[in-house]
């Protein structure tokens, strides 16, 4: 699964730490999600989408191999 979090976060001018603070998670978690090392739970994915003012389908998408 891939995601557009880094692009959308940069568009809003947020740092990883600022986004992490908004979501009450660690900066490491945001970094791991952006680099596809960790797939967030549905709740966190929905919170991320809400914070970035996007639908979750536009933020996360499946790859050919999924």
């Amino acid at each position, binding site marked *: 699964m891939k995601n557009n979090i880094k692009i959308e976060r940069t568009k809003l001018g947020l740092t*990883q730490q600022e986004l992490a603070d908004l979501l009450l998670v660690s900066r*490491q978690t945001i970094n*791991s999600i952006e680099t596809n090392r960790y797939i967030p739970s549905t709740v966190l994915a929905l919170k991320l989408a809400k914070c970035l003012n996007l639908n979750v389908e536009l933020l996360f998408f499946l790859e050919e191999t999924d």
Partner: protein
Amino acid sequence: MLKLKLLPRKLRWIPYFILVLGICSAGLKMVERVDSKILSHLVFSILNIGLLLMFLTKRKLEDEMFIQIRLNNALGGLIFGVTYSFVNMVFVWLDWLDSYPTAEQNLFVVLLTTNLMFWFECYVNENKGNEE
């Protein structure tokens, strides 16, 4: 969201205290050269409680990813422990070892591996998290 009941961070002195107690008992046993099986069981049991509580104590940074890391490493530790136990059995069978490790010793290996893997993964994550 993934949740797990963990020991509050303000109580993190408890596992450290138990571990120090276990290490002191082990040291005392070695210095005094006490050859008591029950004492050996007791030392490993104390160390196991300390390691388990340490694994289940909240870290400074705690969220669903760290809970996932905890669960993955608990499974990793269990797989390592089962393999260790099997290898020990083979070694005893081949007469390369005198006796089987006790249940407490096997559990100690599982808990120690689990803790070490968790600390290592947290350390790696903290360093990788510096990329912006």
